[in-house]
């Protein structure tokens, strides 16, 4: 057995990488599912009530119970829908979100894909994510779903414009689209949140809008659109949209950590390499809780207000940030 492993080092390497990829995938899904519990408990805390506390210790088993329930629900496809598109849409929602996680450099040794245009691939996948909701809304063939789908398309297309622009300041500072390189740059030169504060503001706004999370959850505004784009969905297909949204929040937290808060770097990581993952996880957890706090505290804006905020505030802000960063980088290059 050992001889065989020694004879095929290349194969063993790819085997180890595959196992790592599967571990990252499973951890992501489990964390996303567990985040549903976290959200309900934290909302309960902030609204002065309990939240789910019956199943298992602290109600931790609630997620498992809900999952079992949703798996055994009838998977109903209404007769009036466009069948193929209806089935594909939730798979795109969840699949693309998980695919984006492959780009996240978790620790110096962990991370699935190492692409030298990682940030661009992230933006590309985020751009494709809109199809899930759009197709879900269209294929459902119902007016609420279609309105939800239209809203989400307009919202995502608008906010993606400056999501890319707000990140270009970081690319200029680090001189690379490589996420791993960006983390290493921050470990050496300090976190990007300080020089790129405006970029951070624009990016987080855009990221919340792209994963259509409260307060930007107008595509599924229950007061006016029933359940929005997933009105006609039930069973596990609805479950995939639902968990996909939480994977999206975990992903946005991870990407924000990587781009603006130094990723795995932190005090003590140089001397104790094992601290890399706890630091990364801790930073992500802070952002995840932050997004829940946003949901708990902010009301939903009107649709035109949201579009105006995107085009009239965030876009100019990120463009000015881009120009300012470029000026500083060029001045630094000439001065040195």
């Amino acid at each position, binding site marked *: 057995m050992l001889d065989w492993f020694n004879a095929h080092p290349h194969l063993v390497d790819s085997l180890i990488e595959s196992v790592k990829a599967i571990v990252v995938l499973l951890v992501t899904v489990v964390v996303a599912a567990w985040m549903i519990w976290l959200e309900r408990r934290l909302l309960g805390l902030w609204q002065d009530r309990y939240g789910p506390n019956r199943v298992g210790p602290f109600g931790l088993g609630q997620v498992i119970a809900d999952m079992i329930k949703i798996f055994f629900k009838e998977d109903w496809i209404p007769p009036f829908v466009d069948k193929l*598109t209806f089935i594909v849409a939730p798979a795109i929602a969840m699949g693309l979100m998980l695919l984006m996680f492959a780009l996240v450099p978790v620790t110096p040794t962990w991370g699935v894909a190492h692409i030298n*245009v990682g940030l*661009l691939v992230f933006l*590309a996948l985020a751009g494709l994510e809109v199809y899930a909701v759009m197709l879900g809304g269209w294929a459902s063939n119902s007016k609420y779903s279609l309105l939800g789908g239209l809203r989400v398309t307009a919202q995502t*297309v608008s906010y993606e414009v400056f999501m890319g622009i707000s990140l270009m300041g970081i690319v200029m500072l680090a001189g690379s689209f490589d996420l791993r390189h960006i983390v290493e740059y921050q470990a050496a030169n300090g976190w990007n949140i300080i020089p790129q504060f405006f970029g951070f503001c624009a990016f987080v706004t855009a990221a919340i809008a792209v994963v259509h999370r409260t307060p930007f959850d107008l595509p599924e505004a229950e007061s006016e659109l029933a359940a929005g784009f997933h009105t006609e969905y039930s069973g596990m297909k609805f479950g995939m949209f639902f968990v996909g949204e939480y994977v999206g929040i975990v992903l946005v937290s991870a990407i924000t950590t990587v781009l603006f808060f130094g990723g795995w770097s932190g005090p003590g990581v140089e001397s104790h390499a094992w601290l890399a993952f706890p630091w990364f996880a801790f930073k992500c957890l802070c952002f995840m809780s932050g997004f829940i706090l946003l949901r708990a505290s902010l009301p939903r804006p009107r649709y035109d207000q949201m579009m105006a905020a995107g085009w009239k505030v965030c876009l100019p802000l990120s463009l000015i940030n881009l120009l300012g960063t470029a000026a500083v980088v060029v001045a630094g290059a000439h001065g040195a």
Partner: protein
Amino acid sequence: MTFFFYLAAAVAVISTLFVIFGRNPVHALLNLVVSLLAVAGLFFMLGAPFAGALEVIVYAGAIMVLFVFVVMMLNLGKEIEDQERRWLTPKVWFAPAVLSVLLLGGLLDVLLTGGQTHAAATTTIDAKQVGVHLFGPYLLAVELGSMLLLAALVAAYHLGRHD
């Protein structure tokens, strides 16, 4: 690598055929998205990841989204598919077929004579090299392109004005 290249190429060709023969406009557009993604995959395999990523961001992620957005709002259904069936007569095929055969002739000529094997497949063109070329030899084209975009922007603003 060669296998995956031909796989992606086959996906691109087949999905494009579905775009042409499809009767449901939304399905046709989705096939076009698949085709664009396959072409982006080809770019990645040819060592041009920057071009590949931009292909996905600009074409699949932005332009096609707007196409689907508009088509989604049209009230499609059985009638449109019947209409499409009536419109796709052999007479309609004639002119595009002639043009395609001309293009195919050019392509075959390149393939059969061996053509010039480009170095693109052996070297990776990253973002930096693209930037150096855009703001070096192709500066004039970039400036003209940005003028065109600015003009389009002004025109769109004018059309969308409230009065």
